[in-house]
């Protein structure tokens, strides 16, 4: 069994390492202290199981997982994170609350061995990421680099098949997510879905023009123009209070 540890506190990694010593078939391939190292190590070693902390520098555990094509099975380790715990509870995957005992640790390993099921990692991600607190930024892959986009730097989002195009001043980025996912998670940050294919940063709106019957046209301060559907317009009116 190939294992990788990802936690920004050396002592926290130490205790998992110590607990793992009683398992003879475990190969501890790497120890990482942040998400960037984690991504590299996962791509390099293709582990079966990772132990992952949530609060880490730059990108958190969830954001790191989002950037990996086929995430491995995960056992989360965290001290206190109400939103994350909510996400775990509704899914099959296990999590360890720090500090945890050897018995609890063994139980998590048993659970993994009984039904190793990486698809549940995806489910956890969906649930966790839809809590707004995780989302004052969006992490995307830009070639080989990882780009962190603060939400207020986004002009608008546009649907593009299985992806969503994120349009910012620094360029256009792609993320494999649905529009309704972003509609939910960005709702708390003055974003409105004005059209089936568009979600706009309402702080950038400078003008709303009547376009045709039942449709409007938005003008952003960045010069971009977006169509607004009938339902989009009523949502917009509600948010802007007009």
């Amino acid at each position: 069994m190939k294992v990788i540890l990802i936690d920004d506190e050396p002592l926290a990694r130490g205790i998992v390492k110590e607990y793992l010593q009683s398992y003879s078939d475990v190969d501890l391939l790497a120890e990482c202290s942040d998400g960037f190292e984690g991504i590299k190590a996962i791509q390099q070693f293709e582990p079966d199981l990772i132990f992952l902390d949530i609060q880490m520098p730059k990108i958190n555990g969830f954001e790191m997982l989002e950037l990996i094509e086929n995430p491995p099975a995960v056992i989360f380790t965290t001290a206190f994170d109400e939103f994350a715990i909510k996400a775990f509870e509704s899914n099959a995957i296990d999590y360890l609350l720090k500090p945890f005992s050897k018995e609890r640790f063994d139980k998590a390993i048993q659970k993994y061995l009984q039904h190793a099921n990486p698809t549940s990692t995806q489910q956890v991600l969906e649930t966790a990421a839809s809590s707004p607190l995780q989302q004052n930024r969006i992490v995307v892959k830009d070639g080989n680099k990882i780009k962190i986009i603060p939400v207020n730097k986004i002009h608008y989002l546009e649907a593009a098949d299985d992806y969503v195009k994120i349009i910012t001043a620094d360029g256009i980025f792609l993320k494999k997510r649905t529009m309704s996912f972003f509609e939910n998670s960005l709702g708390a940050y003055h974003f409105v879905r004005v059209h089936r294919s568009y979600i706009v940063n309402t702080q950038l709106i400078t003008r709303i023009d009547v376009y045709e019957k039942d449709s409007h046209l938005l003008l952003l301060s960045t010069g971009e123009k977006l169509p607004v559907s009938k339902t989009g317009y009523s949502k917009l009116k509600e948010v802007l209070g007009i």
Partner: protein
Amino acid sequence: MLRQLDIDQTHAITDSVVSNILLAVSCFFISNNMKYYLPRREKYWYILVISLTVSFLWMLAQQAVMWIIFNEGDNYAEVIHASWSIRFGAGFLLISSMSMFSLLWYSQQEQKEIESRKTEAEQLSKEAELFKLRQQLQPHFLFNSLNSISALTGSNPEKARHMIQQLSDFLRGTLRRNEQQWNTLEEELKYLQLYLDIEKVRFGHRLQTEIIFTDENLRFKLPALLLQPVVENAIKFGLYDTIGQVIIKIIAATENDYLKIIVQNPFDVETSQPFQGTGFGLSSIQRRLFLLFARNDLLQTKKENGHFITTILIPQISDGNKSKK
């Protein structure tokens, strides 16, 4: 009734219409009056007075109107004269029962409003208290520290014991402190050091602190629990916004009658857009300074060469400070 008094139909109908309209106006007036002024318990005589007054005015108005309409004297005046006591009695009864009713209605309404406001206020204060408690406990810090201790018990029991002591001293300090208290910088720095030492065990490989002060600074005073959240904020910000070494600088200085404390942490210029204004977590400190000194300019933040710099000025006005001098 009026017919009995031997007058024609026109007079009778007009009379009753006028009386009733005026009566309705009076009742409306009373009810409105009660809406905006509710007599308190010891002022219930007010109802009697106002009912009498309004009834009297009603009588006057009614007679005046009748006189204007018919402009005739003798016969009708007599009729009115004969019926005034009955009229007044009926009017007074109606008007006073209207005022009683209004009083009851609006009192009850007011009671309900007070009740709901009270529960709301209680709810709010409970929530605030709970929030504060949770903040003070810092669950994230606490559980991660306990986890470090758990790790150390295996590899370095001596160090584990030391950390338990540090954590206990720190928690005791948190419990003992209240926000009204003023402490010397020396005491506050000692308490802060406990916190920094614990954080260094957790992040030893990354976290460094530099505290700069003179002996003279140490005698200056500041409100309890003011400095710690600022430093906490700087550490969190520094550690989670950057990768690699983090140096947190705390510089104390004195300027005229002010104690000036500067806290500096590194941050990532490119990605740390999300926090706005004075930065996350600092708004509560801003608020506290305002409540203490009624000034909004005591906390200032700026970004300089990849460093986030928080400056706090603390006016030296406490009694304790004067007695020391």
